[in-house]
């Protein structure tokens, strides 16, 4: 156990030197160096920031899509002269009555893999929708995979829009990723107060331009509130123009009134529609509606033909900016709800780093002293192994660009306390061997050999805990699992390669003298 080949020694010390270099590079400002500029990332709990978990509510999406499907079905049924009755949506399914003679035609169409209404997914070997006919009652529902696809596309669209909105606000390196099949995880480092982002994400941002009804009895109108939740107006249900046709929006100051406004630009189709609608309705009031709330309802003074317009309202510059962000990024396909939020202020993060560093230094110092007291010279070897271990651990965290959290720091300190165990096991074994073995070298050799199974068993158990914690833990706790797990690996390395080499040198020197541990 005490012999090391030259190549082995080279590899061991090369690894130690490289990883130590990476770990030291963390504390030096060297962003120009493309290899050594790697740094351990600080978790949100250490650098301050906000964590948001959003959930996409796909219920309204299902009904919305069924509504579209219903229109397509009606058109198809009419084209094929299939007689139907009572075509409507009940309990997330489309239902209608069919005539006996038409069943075959319908089935043939429905199960045609190239039909445009009911998509066939090759990867699932399944249709988007499934039908059943009992007593001429047709029920059409989404299949399992149809729902999966629908949710998937809703989530990816939402993700896209969330990304756009957050990018517009311009926060520092946000992380926006999908979580499971209906959630979006957002991490915003450095952002202490997420209320603005929350407000931006909390709005679906469905924009529509609709006429104000002349009086409440007008057919097809509904009573809507203004944004202040007090005033109300009757608004026609017919949408003249929706936010889909909007290509740009910008906040601005109106020269005449000195008020904040939002200027918008429409695409070609939108410009045409808007021009026609405003030409026809000069003198009437046009309501601008966002998520079923009236922003403003100005009178159309003249036709707006250029494809650009202005929304005025009771805006501050901030709220005008936020509205343009919402309009530019487009409407979310489904409402998002915030199901979890964690924010840490940067000052608390700094305090945590300080506390973590102090407790690491003190814990480290105490363990080092204790080992010196307990093992004298071999204590120095154990302590050198401990220092190496720490350098290796931080070096690996750096290379992986792992995220260090407060529990992660606790994991490092705990590693310091537990890492000496491997050397303790070995030294205790050597001690026992020295009592029965005359040769120092043999005692060391046998000691290392015999301790091996205990060292391995003991560390595997902790590693199992760390792995489980990594896969089932979340956020900061994951950081703990990472440092604990890597710590075990570096511990084994430093005990069985580095400390063993030092011990072998020590044993060679002391080979003819009495060694007392």
């Amino acid at each position: 156990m005490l012999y090391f080949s030259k190549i082995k020694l080279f590899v061991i010390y090369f690894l130690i030197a490289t990883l130590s270099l990476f770990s030291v590079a963390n504390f030096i400002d060297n962003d120009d160096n493309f290899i050594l500029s790697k740094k351990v990332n600080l978790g949100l709990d250490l650098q301050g920031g906000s964590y948001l978990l959003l959930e996409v509510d796909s219920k309204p999406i299902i009904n919305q899509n069924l509504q579209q499907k219903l229109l397509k079905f009606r058109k198809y049924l009419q084209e094929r002269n299939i007689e139907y009755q009572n075509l409507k949506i009940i309990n997330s399914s489309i239902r209608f009555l069919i005539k006996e003679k038409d069943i075959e035609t319908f089935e043939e169409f429905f199960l045609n893999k190239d039909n445009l209404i009911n998509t066939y997914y090759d990867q699932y070997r399944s249709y988007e929708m499934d039908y059943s006919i009992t007593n001429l009652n047709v029920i059409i529902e989404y299949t399992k995979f149809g729902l999966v696809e629908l949710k998937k596309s809703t989530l990816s669209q939402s993700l896209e829009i969330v990304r756009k909105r957050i990018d517009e606000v311009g926060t520092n390196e946000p992380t926006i990723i999908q979580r499971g099949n209906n959630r979006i995880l957002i991490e915003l480092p450095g952002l202490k107060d997420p209320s603005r982002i929350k407000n931006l994400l909390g709005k679906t941002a469905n924009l529509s331009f609709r006429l104000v009804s002349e009086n409440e009895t007008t057919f097809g109108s509904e009573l809507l509130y203004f944004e202040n939740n007090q005033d109300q107006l009757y608004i026609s249900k017919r949408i003249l123009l929706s936010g889909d046709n909007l290509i740009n929006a910008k906040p601005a100051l109106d020269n005449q009134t000195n008020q904040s406004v939002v200027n918008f630009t429409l695409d070609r189709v939108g410009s045409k529609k808007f021009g026609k609608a405003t030409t026809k309705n000069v003198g009437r009031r046009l309501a601008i509606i966002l998520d079923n709330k009236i922003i403003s309802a100005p009178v159309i003074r003249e036709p707006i033909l250029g494809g650009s317009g202005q929304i005025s309202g009771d805006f501050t510059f901030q709220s005008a900016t936020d509205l343009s962000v919402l309009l530019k990024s487009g409407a979310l396909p489904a409402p998002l709800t915030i199901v979890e939020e964690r924010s840490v202020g940067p000052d608390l993060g700094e305090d945590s780093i300080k506390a973590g560093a102090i407790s690491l230094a003190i814990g480290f110092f105490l363990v080092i002293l204790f080992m010196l007291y307990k093992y004298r010279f071999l204590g120095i070897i154990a302590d050198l192994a401990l220092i190496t271990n720490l350098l290796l651990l931080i070096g690996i965290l750096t290379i992986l660009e792992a995220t260090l959290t407060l529990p992660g720091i606790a994991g490092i300190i705990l590693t310091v306390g537990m890492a000496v165990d491997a050397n303790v096991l070995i030294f205790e074994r050597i001690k026992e061997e020295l009592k029965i073995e005359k040769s120092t070298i043999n005692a060391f050799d046998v000691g290392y050999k015999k301790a091996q199974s205990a060292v391995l068993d003991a560390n595997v158990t902790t590693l199992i805990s760390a792995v489980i914690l990594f896969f089932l833990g979340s956020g900061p706790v994951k950081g703990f699992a990472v440092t604990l797990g890597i710590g075990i690996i570096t511990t084994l390395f430093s005990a069985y390669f580095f400390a063993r080499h030092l011990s072998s040198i020590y044993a060679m020197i002391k080979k003819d003298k009495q060694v007392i541990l």
Partner: protein
Amino acid sequence: MEKLKKIQFTKFYKKMNFLSLVLISLSLFILIFKGLNLGVDFKGGTLIEARTESTAISISDIRQSLLKMDLGDVTVKKFGKESDYLIKIEINNTNDTNFIKSLNNKLSSDLGSIINFRRVENVGPKVSGELLKAGLLAITFSLAAMLFYIWIRFEWQFSLGAIIALIHDVIITIGIFSILSFEINLSIVAAILTIVGYSMNDTVVIFDRIRENLKKYTTIPISEISNISTNETLSRTLITSITTLLALFSIFIFGGAILKGFSFAMIVGVIVGTYSSIFVATPILNYTNVNSKSVLKEEQEDKENF
């Protein structure tokens, strides 16, 4: 450590097992009748770490002010430094995007001092339910994984001893949290998993030695083997516990208020885990009558299988 070599551990087994039984029953009793103080991670709600600018504000001021806002159950306590408080609110209101902001405004104006929210955790009921499930799953899973590992490496009597010791440690640690009404949050679950790993580690080292000695001294009965092996490994057991506790106490004292619960759980766990390796796991080997024959036989079978 030389003096310690002569300890007759087997003599204490009965007494210590009785003590363990009492502690476990007490823990279970308290767990059933008092329950756990679950944090927002597992119960849902809002947690705020606040720092007040003026030191003249008292806990009851903050409490009174919050109670006016109709937020359900509210608890306020000191957290670390003077003028730092931890506020726990029953409702989470994740849907109201201005909830936290308006809470801060109301509190600041009501108390007449700027209140700095240093940390806010707002967990909805769905997520807290999932986190609780994941936490329980993680603990169960780790116990199962340990059982599996030890079953592969050792004979069944050893697995039994180890797993009973682990359950013993987990129940007593959680029991102490229940008695003291300390909060159970995500980091406590992490602590419990680490305790499981640590306690196992401690047990395995003694078991390793017992198995070795069973092969070496084929005529000595298991009770004597337990004694010899525990004595032989005692110095290591103590040294490792001491260094680990040194590290943990340093986190507990200097690591800040956030890590207090975690390090406390670990300290309890390391002490209980060390105790259980000697006085719970090892006695079970005596009771199940492990002997040289069974160990050697299993070893033989293992060799043949390879």
